[in-house]
Structures are given as C-alpha cells and as structure tokens.
C-alpha cells in the first residue's frame, strides 16, 4: 500500500501560558517581543499523529505548512527535527490583520497548490483559542472534517478511522480521504527531537534566510534540495487580496482592554487557627455555611 501525503498545519504563537510582568505595555497592548515564540502546543499533538501515520504506513510523507512572518520558519525546522520531511512558509505582508476567516482563505489557497491526502492541525492555537481555522479551511476546500481527534486508529480502503474525545466520552468515526483532522491536547505528546534529523536539517532555510549567505553555503543548499524551506507569497498561491488581511476579515476588533481587576475591599487574614476560627464562625453566623 502506498503511504499517505500528510500536511500538518502549524502556527508559531507567543507563549501566552507564561506571561511575565513585562508582557503588557503601559498603553495596555500586548508586548509580543516579551513573549517567547513557540510551536503551538496542540499543533505538536497534530504532528505526532502525522508521524504515527508515517510510521505505520511506509511511504507516507509529512509536510509542515505554516503561515506567519519570516521567523516562523523556526517551527518548520522544529518539525523537521522531530520527523517531518519538509515544509512551506506562507508569508506575505498582505496577510497581516487577517481574522480566522481570512486566514483560512489564505491557507486554503496554499493547500490547493500542494498534493495531499490528509490535513492535520491542532484543534486551536493558544493565542486565540478559537478552534475555527481548521473547520473553516475544510469548508473552503469542500472536505470532510473530524475535530477533537485524539487518535488516528487506522487507514484502509481510502478511509481513516479516528477516535474523538468529546465532553463526556468518545466517538469513533470513519472518514474518506482527503479530509481535515484537528487534534486535541488529550492526544499523545509529540516525540522529542531526533539527533539524526537535527544533523540533517539544521541548515534548512527559507530563501529569505539565505540572503547574504556565502558561496559555499549556497552550494551546499544547491547540492541538498531537501534543505530548502519553500516560501509562498500571495502571488504564489494566487490568492485574491480582497479576501485577505483587514479587508478580508469580517470581524473587527473594536476595543481591547488589558485585564485590570477592580479591587474590592478584601479582608486580610493569616492562616492562624484563631483567624480561621473567627472566619468560620462568621460564615456560620451569616448563614453562608450551614442553614
């Protein structure tokens, strides 16, 4: 049996889980520079599912597709170190300000240029937590989707069987390929980097990253085509700019407020027995506790 061509949709995100004190600027906007940029966690779960398919069905390939600024090539290399074969960076100023709908349009244009059987993405990215781009891409490509996936169980007769993790249980579904799968954080963690893959791909670069490289370095790239991370622009993917960026985004951010708690008058207590005894007495007396 021939393998599956898998595209993993991944996003480089600011690490919103580790927000330090300098993460917000004085004007209340987010200071992205103060946050480390990471491989979106659920996209790593997605990558692991892709790599497991590749392990089970020889001849499969795993391609990373990411949309973002030039430095997002970092997560493509990260994916290669863990077992992906190659990657595409969809990057263009025209994408700036895109909401989920415009983003899904851009990604669907790029995917139309690529050959694939399965698209796998994380359920959602931690900078927005919307879980919208996967289904929106699926709709634009006219493909079936399986969200909340936890385990890709098998592939046979052009169908994939997938276990989904829902609020109160599981559901096992079967979908034809091509299809879009979005993966939950409850799925197995991604395998670590592999030393051989690091050696192989540490010089993988986009054309932009190669600017200013010396002749020897360029020759190495010419001799080893697998080191090329392909860049795709609006022109390359034949996207219509009216559906991109702010003009292609039906949702607009009207206002943003940084979160400042309204301070209440709170009573301060110690953990001493007498303080806690007094508090419990008070709660009983005012019927917050008991009857």
């Amino acid at each position, binding site marked *: 049996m021939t393998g599956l061509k898998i595209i993993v949709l991944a996003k480089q995100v600011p690490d919103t889980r580790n927000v330090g004190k300098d993460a917000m600027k004085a004007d209340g906007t987010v200071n992205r520079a103060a946050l480390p940029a990471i491989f979106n966690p659920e996209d790593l779960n997605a990558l692991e599912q892709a790599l497991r398919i590749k392990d089970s069905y020889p001849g499969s390939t795993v391609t990373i597709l990411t949309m973002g600024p030039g430095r997002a090539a970092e997560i493509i290399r990260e994916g290669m170190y863990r077992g992906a074969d190659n990657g595409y960076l969809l990057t263009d100023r025209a994408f700036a300000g895109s909401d989920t709908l415009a983003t899904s349009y851009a990604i669907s244009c790029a995917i139309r240029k690529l050959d694939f059987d399965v698209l796998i993405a994380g359920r959602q990215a931690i900078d927005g937590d919307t879980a*919208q781009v996967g289904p929106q891409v699926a709709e634009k490509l006219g493909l079936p989707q399986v969200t909340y996936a936890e385990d890709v169980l098998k592939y046979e007769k052009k169908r994939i069987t997938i276990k989904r993790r829902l609020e109160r249980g599981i559901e096992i579904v079967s*979908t034809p390929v091509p299809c879009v799968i979005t993966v939950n954080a409850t799925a197995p963690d991604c395998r670590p980097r592999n030393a051989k893959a690091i050696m192989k791909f540490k010089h993988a670069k986009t054309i932009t990253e190669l600017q200013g490289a010396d002749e020897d370095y360029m020759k190495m790239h010419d001799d080893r085509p697998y080191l090329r991370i392909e860049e795709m622009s609006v022109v390359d993917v034949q996207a219509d700019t009216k559906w991109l960026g702010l003009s292609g985004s039906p949702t607009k951010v009207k206002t943003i407020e*940084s979160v400042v708690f309204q301070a209440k008058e709170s009573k301060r207590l110690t953990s001493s027995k007498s303080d806690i005894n007094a508090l419990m007495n008070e709660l009983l007396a005012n019927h917050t506790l008991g009857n």
Partner: protein
Amino acid sequence: MNNIFVFCEIDEGKVADVSQELLTKGRSLANELKCDLEAVVLGHEIKGIEKEIAPFGADVVHIADDKKLEFFLTLPFTSIIVDLFEKEKPQIALFGASSIGRDLAPRVSSALMSGLTADCTSLIIGDHEDKKAKKKYENLLYQIRPAFGGNIIATIINPDHRPQMATVREGVMKKEVYKDDYKCKVKNIEVGSILTDADAVVEIVERHIEARKIDIKKSQIIISGGYGVGSKENFNKLFDLAELIGGEVGASRAAVDSGFVDHARQVGQTGVTVRPKLYIACGISGQVQHTAGMEESAMIIAVNTDLSAPINKIADYVITGEVGEVIPRMIEAYKKNSK
C-alpha cells in the same frame, strides 16, 4: 427576516442547557432590537421538542427531524444550517461553544463568509463609528471575549457581514423561562431536499458518551483548587471540606492539566461558569480565564501564599497561608462551631 437565530443542540434527547441559556440571551437581544427570536433544532424523533424551546421566548422554531440527523455530523448539519441562513438571513446567530457548536459554527461561517467570534463571555448591542471610512453603524452585536491567554479582553464586531455569529460556553449566560405559555410557530425543514450523498461520507462507528455525572454548577458552595494546591493528597483535603460543608470541588485549568482532578470540575473560560453563594479559591492565582468562570460568586475566599495574586483583588477574604495547612484548620473550626 433579519431575526436572531439560536442553534439548539440535543443532549440525551433534550434541548441542551447551553442552548436554553442562549435562547434567554437571544430573547433579551431580540427585545432590544425589536425583532423576533428563532430557534433551529436538528435531530431524530424530536416531535414536540418546541415545547422545550418556546418558553424561553422563541417566536419560531425550525425543526429538522430525520434519521440522518440522529447524532451530530458536520456535513449534514452544516448543509441544513447554511441553507436555512441563506433563506432567512439572520442578523445574529448564536451557537453553544460545545464540541458540536465549535465544529459547526466555523464551518457555517466559512460557507457564508461571515464573521464568527468564539467563546464570548458577554454579548451586548452597541453602535460603532468607522472614522476612516466615515461610516456609522447602529445596533451591532458587541462580542466580548478574553483573548491572548486571557491577558486582554477584546470587543469584536462584524460591521458589514451577516449573520453576526458567536459561540458561548455553557453556564456563561443565565437561563430563564420567559413565559411558560409563550406561543411559537413551528416550521419543518425539508431535509430530503437539502441533503446529498456527499453529506453522508463520514460515519459514526461507535459512541460511548457518559451521562452527566459531576455537575458542580448546581452547588451553592464550591471549593476550588489550583496548581498551588500542590498534590492530589492536598486535593483530597478539599474534598473532605466539601463533603463536610455540603459543597463541590472545582479546579483551575492548571490543576486539571496537572492531573489533580477531572476536567468536569474545571471552572473558567474552558470549563464551567459558576455562581455559588460561596467560592473558596485555594492555590489559584486568578488568571482571567479562571475568574471569568467564578467572579459572580456571592462571596469569594482566596487561600494562597502570594500576596500579589490577582484572585486576591476580587476576593472578599484573603487568607495568606499554605492550602495544606489552612483547609484542615477550616475543617476543625467548622466541626467545633457548627455543633
């Protein structure tokens, strides 16, 4: 035309709580906008389901009843909703932010090229002026949600596209019967004329869905633990206190992620929203994702060792100390004083 639509989910043969909550919100928005509230419900053998919907103030209930709709499947549900919205042109469409709503709503929005805002914590009507384009908009839906890991609160609008779509998690909006005998009109959807073979390509092989068990929302006292509780053993102390004073144990996302307790107990943006009369937050720093799910509690007691924890700012009482020490003292004090 241009009414407010609420997608109603079926859960164990009944209209889901989250959908009834959205109907209540939809009714109040409809009153403000002076339009009708319409509901749409898809399922199999759901005759009479409108009786669970009308009392929340729905003027029209669209029903699609077909074997192919017994369980949620993305493609047939999308086709029916898209067909309905193209005909009815809602100005606002609300979905529960459940595994169903979060699968269906983006698919529908992508098909209709309309905007969608996920996991809103508040929905209000307001105006907007686009100064650059010199355009004024009246009566837009402000879709308010935390973003960027909860560090900001964003107000999102869809000035030019309809429907304005939003998802809202269970428990965020209040569910309230509008009128017990509210009259609604039932409109049946012709399923056969909409669905095609292409809608049937995904099959459900197996389902194991458990009945609802843990439901901390109904409890008047909630003792919640965060990462700062430190261990499963310390969490057991929270369960001891909860049992003694008749409460339930809740948790922050960090505690659930650390495996201290089951996800069903998670309070906050990605868990449940609670409004008990007493909320004791143990070892919880109080990121907005968590406080969004409990800040309307009548009384909040924070127990932690961090004087600068954000939770302390919304707490009525702040106990500075180790959770593992404070909780046993609460148990001891309660036993002594309640006799």
